[in-house]
């Protein structure tokens, strides 16, 4: 499961660039900050490698298995 916190995201695109399976894509949506946040396009390919979470400078992206949902 991938969750993107659009309030924290600054739209730098590092998560999209370093995803090995092209799970994410920059969206056309505009947030309150005036940036384009990423969106999940094919979640089934996600291997939970954690690159997006590791390289996000703003703690805006979280991945986890379904059962770990709090």
């Amino acid at each position: 499961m991938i969750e993107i916190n659009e309030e924290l995201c600054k739209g730098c695109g590092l998560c999209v660039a370093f995803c090995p399976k092209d799970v994410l894509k920059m969206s056309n949506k505009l947030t309150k900050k005036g940036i384009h946040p990423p969106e999940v396009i094919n979640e089934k390919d996600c291997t939970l490698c954690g690159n997006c979470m590791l390289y996000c400078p703003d703690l805006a992206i979280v991945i986890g298995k379904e059962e770990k949902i709090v």
Partner: protein
Amino acid sequence: MKIVHPLIKYVRPGFLSTTNCAGCGNGIIAQSILRAVDELEMDIDDFVFVSGIGCAAWIPSPFFNADVLHTTHGRPIAFATGVKLSNPKLRVMVVSGDGDLVAIGGNHFIHAARRNIDLTVICANNGIYGMTGGQVGPTTPSGLKTATTPYGNLERPFDLPNLAKAAGAVYVARWTTYHARQLTKSIKRAVQKKGFSFIEVISQCPVQFGRRTGAGNAVTMMQNYKKNSVSIKKVDKLKENELKGKIIVGEFIDREEPELCEEIAKMRERIG
């Protein structure tokens, strides 16, 4: 239904947004420090984070929910030395930028390494004075155009790991923000190490460095770090011209030397 970020428990309550520009490497370094604390299962309240002035000084302050000392320009190591000597049980970590630690605070840096006081120093090296508008710094690579060197930088940059090694540090490593996993491992090693440990992190500054020197945006800069970094284990096999423009990453030294706080305790015992 919401997943909570595993590191959000270390972030000061009321945190709305990081202080970084979009794509800044400082956020990756901040996460690596928090992840190292989390993986070591240490209490973040046992730490004192000391930072100076500059963009990288905003990594711990006010972001981390711990004791944070945001000090004057160039003096975080001097303050950290005081904190450590007054209470040697505390784990003191200095997190600051290249302009703060090795430009204005260069003397404090080499003397703390010479004394071998138990500090962990993490230097976010973006190669430029980012906060003040992209001026040339002592770590700017030669030939680059910055706000104050419109015809290219004529000076040579500091080689920080070798400087720390020669000054007497017991643990020295260099990574880039691309090597976030290895960086976390190195921070864990540095925190557990008794003595002066130093980690240089080459970090991207897309706004000042990227724009002024033509290095591109955050993604291009990080992809270049991936392409241009060479492990220290492979350096001996490469020729000098092959190493030109490359970033040597890895652990430069890991040795044991007498530590200052322990030596002071021994001296106290000896003189009664």
